[in-house]
């Protein structure tokens, strides 16, 4: 393999690793959503456990990126590829973290008296999930337009979150018995809101990777 | 590890052989020089060096011949050095590269390796017959100049050319003209080479005989070493008189064989010539090293 090819291969490997990590993250969040919909404590527990692997991947990708910078000294597009990798893994890891947090809360919820899940919660969860998938897709296809679209969805999530919060506050006051459960549910929603934020960040890095231009997209 | 014998043994044999050849060569030189110094030892004295040759009796010296040789070298150097260097500069720097220049350079090279007898004949026709000077020291000097000009021009050109192009560019890039570049940078750098060339040419002139047979002649008038008037016929400084040089004298006494001690004279004169060659060599070495140190250092 030629030196140049070694470098190309490194870049490809880096890309692949991120996609692998992205897939794990996507699964984690999908599982969290499912666990929430079905109130499945086992799925939730499994999801929570999967987080360690993702943490390890973050570290290893970071390390790999730095090694590429140190040994291959990339510039221009190559440098952007490595830099965006270095940055977006943090967001991915964060998303997985939040998915794991959500799962833990689901386990707590399952141990409480069953409450009704406001349908908007599921909508919001799915929206966040789609944003993660969308941002990852845009990364795979290096598609800045798609990435910008994803970022725009974040406003919808924020809006939904505000509405759900109000509804949950209302529910707490009418149903004081289930306050604890509703608080957990609120926090779960907060996590989804954060996940959408991180997905937006990922999308921003994709735009940077493609255009070399890093701006807040929402 | 497998041992291989053959190449190593061949290597030893070859090395030994080469040592033998080189040793033989050095021995030959030692024998050569030793022989002359030995057989000419009896003649290496003031009387021999400074008295007149005898015409048909033994005991003559080589005084005038020695003087003539030196004077001839001086005269021809006076003409050939400036012209030779100038021509060298022209060919190294100004001649437009092309067929014509190539042809001229080829001609000059031919001139420099022309059999000296041919140059002598040319000199005979021009400086003896055409000018009507008869055999003169000047004619000889001019003929020797023809022989030496190409040598000096050639060595000067080579020496100037061997100055790295980058140095020339450096000077031009500072806004020096071509001529300034030549005078201030190229010539000083090329000086050791040029000086070596001049000395080699002088050595050649000193030992030259064939060219002089028909130009400077094979006889000398009786010289009066107290007369320093250059236009007087008996003055040693008069260039327009016949002048037999040392090398010609050696040849002559062998061809004519009139003096009884011809052999001894020839031995002595040869010893003098060889010593002169040694001196020229040492001088060339010394000067070029001196100049080299002045301008050199180690060129990296």
């Amino acid at each position, binding site marked *: 393999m030629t030196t140049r090819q070694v470098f190309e291969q490194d870049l490809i490997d880096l890309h692949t690793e991120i996609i692998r990590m992205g897939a794990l993250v996507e699964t984690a969040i999908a599982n969290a959503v499912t666990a929430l919909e079905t109130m499945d404590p086992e799925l939730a527990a499994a999801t929570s456990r999967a987080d360690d692997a993702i943490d390890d991947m973050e570290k290893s990708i970071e390390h790999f990126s730095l090694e590429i910078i140190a040994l291959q000294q990339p510039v221009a597009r190559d440098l952007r590829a490595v830099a965006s990798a270095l940055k977006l893994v943090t967001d991915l890891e964060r998303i997985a973290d939040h998915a794991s947090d959500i799962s833990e809360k689901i386990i707590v919820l399952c141990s409480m008296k069953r409450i009704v899940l406001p349908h908007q919660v599921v909508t919001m969860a799915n929206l966040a999930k789609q944003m993660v998938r969308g941002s990852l897709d845009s990364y795979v296809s290096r598609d800045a337009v798609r990435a910008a679209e994803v970022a725009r969805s974040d406003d919808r999530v924020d809006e939904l979150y505000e509405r759900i919060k109000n509804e949950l506050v209302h529910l707490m006051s009418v149903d004081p018995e289930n306050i604890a459960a509703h608080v957990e549910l609120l926090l779960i929603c907060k996590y989804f809101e954060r996940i959408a934020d991180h997905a937006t960040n990922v999308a921003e890095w994709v735009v940077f990777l493609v255009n070399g231009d890093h701006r807040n997209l929402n | 590890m497998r041992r291989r014998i053959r190449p190593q043994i*061949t290597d030893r044999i070859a090395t030994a052989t080469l040592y033998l050849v080189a040793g033989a*060569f050095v021995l030959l030189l030692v024998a050569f020089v030793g022989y*002359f110094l030995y057989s000419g030892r009896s003649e290496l004295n003031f009387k021999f060096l400074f008295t007149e040759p005898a015409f048909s009796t033994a005991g003559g010296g080589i005084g005038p011949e020695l003087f003539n040789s030196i004077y001839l070298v001086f005269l021809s150097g006076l003409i050939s050095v400036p012209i030779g260097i100038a021509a060298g500069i022209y060919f190294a720097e100004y001649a437009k590269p092309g067929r014509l220049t190539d042809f001229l350079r*080829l001609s000059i090279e031919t001139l420099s390796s022309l059999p000296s007898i041919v140059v002598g*004949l040319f000199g005979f026709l021009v400086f003896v017959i055409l000018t009507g000077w008869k055999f003169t020291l000047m004619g000889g000097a001019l003929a020797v100049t023809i022989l030496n000009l190409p040598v000096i021009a050639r060595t000067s050109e080579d020496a100037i050319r061997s100055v790295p192009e980058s140095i020339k560019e450096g000077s031009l890039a500072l806004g020096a003209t071509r001529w300034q570049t030549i005078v201030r940078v190229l010539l000083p750098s090329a000086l050791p080479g040029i000086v070596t060339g001049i000395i*080699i040419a002088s050595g*050649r002139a000193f030992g030259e005989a064939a060219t002089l047979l028909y130009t400077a002649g094979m006889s000398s008038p009786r010289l009066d070493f107290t007369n320093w008037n250059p236009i007087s016929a008996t003055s040693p400084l008069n260039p327009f008189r016949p002048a037999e040089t040392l090398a010609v004298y050696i040849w002559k006494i062998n061809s004519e064989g009139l003096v009884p001690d011809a052999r001894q004279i020839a031995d002595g004169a040869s010893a003098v010539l060889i010593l002169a060659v040694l001196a020229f060599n040492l001088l060339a070495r010394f000067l070029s090293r001196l100049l080299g140190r002045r301008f050199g250092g180690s060129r990296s």
Partner: protein
Amino acid sequence: MANPPSRKVLGRINLYYWKHENLGRGLVTGFGIFLAGLTLLMAGFLAVKGLSTFLVDHVSPLEFLFSTKWSPDADVPAFGALIFIVGSILISTLALLISTPFSISTAMFVAEISPNLGRKVLQPAIEIFVGIPSVVYGWIGLSVLVPFIRRSFGGLGFSLLAGSLVLALMIFPTITSLAADAFRALPTDFREASYALGATRWQTVRKVLLPAAMPGILTGVVLGLARAFGEALAVQMVIGNMIRIPGKLTDATVNLTSIITMDMGNTATGTPWNDVLWSMALLLLMISFLFILLARTTGQKRRSLK
């Protein structure tokens, strides 16, 4: 762009430039052209003189080149110069054959086997040899070699062999120093590379250096040959000057330069005899021109290899 004050410009002539460029340039160009003119003049002169044998005296060039009959003072003079030409060729070739192997060996020694001894001992020795005047070589041939040959092989001693040996000695330093230069001009890289491949010194010299130096060595050989061809006095002193084609090495013979040297003084200008001598001189000029051309082409090959 204003000129600095030191640059006086008068009309269209820039004095600065005139002083620092055109003056010097004109001077050296003049001398360069003078030298070139001198060469052409000589060639022209020799050509006029040498060709008059054929144009004025109507000697056939074929007779001149290919006849052995030389009787310039007979009633019906014959001007066949073949004997002299053959003599020159024989003597030079022989000299070359004797000295080339020794020259190359010495050059190898100087450049490859012991550069130290080479620089300190052999190089100066070679230079002294180059500088020794030809009459001295002639004299040593006469006083040492000729008696030696006479004692060892009989005959007169004056002989083809004596001439060749003297010439061999004379051209030996020329060839050696050019060959040594050729070896030294080779980059050290070649040696390192060869040793690094596991070759011995002799293998390196034989297989890499000698072939690489060959063009330079050939240049040396050709120039040596040129010198041998044109040498007059030293040869004339020992060759015997018998006008005949030698049957064996110890026979006396004659060559172009000897006959010119000897006869030029005895003939009157304008006589056919004298003219023929000039023709021989012209022949020498042409031959040396040829040798130079040859040396150049081999030398060029060397340059293109670098």
